[in-house]
């Protein structure tokens, strides 16, 4: 039971104790903060200095003049950005003519990335659903199977696809031998080939977030749907798909972003004839030797990526609000 009154001595001792507690709390908090900053420091330095730093320098370079043999001349100029949309008239340096060649490339990249995303979604959603409805013991194994190709070398994987699809490749040879076609189908070096390559490269990135979302699905809601006379198709369309929307959005972003910035796939599968932004950028640092332009292009690519990411986070927060609001 509480003492009825604390004497003066006891009261003073109590406030001294409480002061010591406050001191302990403060020094512990300070120590914790110091430890935390020390712990993140290496990662921040490594990624900050050698990851973010280069990006900033790239930004800087996009406002410089190209050097004669690659590299840059240190003169401020917005030429790189201008070059993206305009080209100088051959006979009158001051006149600018609008050119759409680069825009076309950006457009193609966005289109191909978009188509890839859609196909990945169509292929990946049933797969993810199937995986999520396997017995719990099997699921990890499925995840492992689907993820494994993603961790292997992208160049090799794309090469493998290249070998299969080329004019002298397995598919064409098989079709020829079976007499179904009379001459090889020239898939290679077309936009179709690039799309197939992209799809092959990034399919696991669609399946995984979809699976994560579907695994958490409360199947009692599906039960309720059936209870209310819905068919399998309706249940799928009106219950399962809407509920897995976060996974769908995540998967689409995860495929779209690397797809739009792809380099290996369009190079191998497009043979240098069909350019995507990635090829165009790389070109500036190889043959074309226009570093500022390459930097500008990279920034434009980052812009597109940022817009996509913004779209994703806004969608995600809207989902949260809808669920908990």
């Amino acid at each position, binding site marked *: 039971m509480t003492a009825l009154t604390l004497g003066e001595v006891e009261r003073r001792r109590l406030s001294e104790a409480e002061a010591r507690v406050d001191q302990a709390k403060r020094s512990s908090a300070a120590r914790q903060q110091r430890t*935390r900053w020390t712990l993140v420091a290496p990662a921040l330095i490594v990624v900050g200095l050698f990851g973010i730093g280069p990006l900033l320098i*790239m930004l800087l370079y996009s406002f410089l003049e190209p050097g004669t043999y690659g590299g840059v001349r240190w003169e401020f100029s917005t030429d790189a950005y201008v070059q993206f949309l305009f080209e100088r008239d051959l006979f009158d340096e001051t006149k600018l003519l609008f050119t759409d060649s680069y825009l076309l490339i950006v457009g193609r990249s966005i289109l191909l990335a978009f188509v890839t995303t859609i196909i990945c979604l169509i292929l990946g959603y049933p797969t993810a659903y199937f995986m999520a409805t396997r017995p719990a013991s099997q699921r*990890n194994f499925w995840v492992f199977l689907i993820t494994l190709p993603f*961790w292997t070398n992208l160049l090799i994987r794309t090469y493998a696809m290249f070998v299969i699809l080329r004019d002298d490749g397995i598919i064409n040879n098989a079709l020829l031998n079976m007499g179904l076609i009379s001459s090889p189908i020239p898939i290679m070096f077309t936009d179709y080939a690039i799309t197939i390559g992209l799809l092959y490269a990034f*399919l696991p990135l669609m399946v995984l977030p979809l699976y994560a979302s579907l695994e958490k699905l409360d199947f009692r809601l599906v039960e309720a749907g059936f209870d209310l006379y819905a068919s399998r198709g309706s249940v799928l369309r009106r219950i399962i798909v809407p509920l897995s929307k976060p996974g769908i959005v995540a998967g689409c972003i995860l495929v779209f972003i690397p797809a739009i*910035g792809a380099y290996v796939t369009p190079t191998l599968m497009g043979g240098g004839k069909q350019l995507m932004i990635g090829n165009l950028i790389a070109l500036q640092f190889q043959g074309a030797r226009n570093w500022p332009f390459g930097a500008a292009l990279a920034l434009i690519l980052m812009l597109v990526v940022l817009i996509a990411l913004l779209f994703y986070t806004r969608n995600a927060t809207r989902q949260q609000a809808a669920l908990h609001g």
Partner: protein
Amino acid sequence: MASVAASAPERRRRRFDLRKQPGFGFMAALCLLVLYAPIMVLIAYSFNETRSVSQWQGFSLDWYVKAFANKEIQEAAWNSLQIALVATVIATVCATMAALATTRTRPWRGMTTSYMVVNLPLMVPEIVTAIATLIFFALLYAALGISFGIGNLMIAHAVFCVPFAYLPIRARLEDMDRTLEQAAADLYATPWQTFRRVTLPLMMPGVTAGATLAFVVSFDDFTITLMLAGPGQTTLPIYIWTSLRRGISPEINAMSSILLVISVILVTASFLLGRRRK
């Protein structure tokens, strides 16, 4: 009670599995086929006796032998290995420390930023990272005369390996029972002793899984290495690339198969290590 014998051919009642969607299993199988068929074909043809990569002639290990004997391949393999090892060590140390600071703790000022910085390399398309790093090291050399040689590649790899090492370590830490560390403190351990005797040993599987993943990612990297590598800094993927430009050859198939197998083994190991222990 109806006698069992009387109900003649027992009608098999198909249980209504509310989860089943028609055709989805087929799609999943198709997916797996699409994902694995090309790789399987490649590996199969690496054993092909003739030079052709599209017509099967007979089984042979010739190309593997040729590949192993090739001096350029040996050098490329050594470069790949060096870079991957150094990058893995740097990335794993950074990632482990960062994970300790950002997991199992109440949000602190700067935690979200740290988390975003650590995972930044995942958000940036590879080609952008590649040229940005190229520009960076070019500037470093032009302005300050500093170049680390193959160290440039090691650093660049370390940067994008950090998030790959970070994620498994973080997962493992979050799974860990916090009361264990309380128990250690209760038993007179200082914070450092608690870390060394309890936290670290229990965290190790995650660290190993993360390191393995980082190694695979570095070993397999192509785009960034391509942009950055100078003469004498060829890695295996770069070697395969340059060979490809010269034309398809079965040595490439053999090389590729070896790389594939290495990746598979390492990723399987990482996966098994990172598995939740009951």
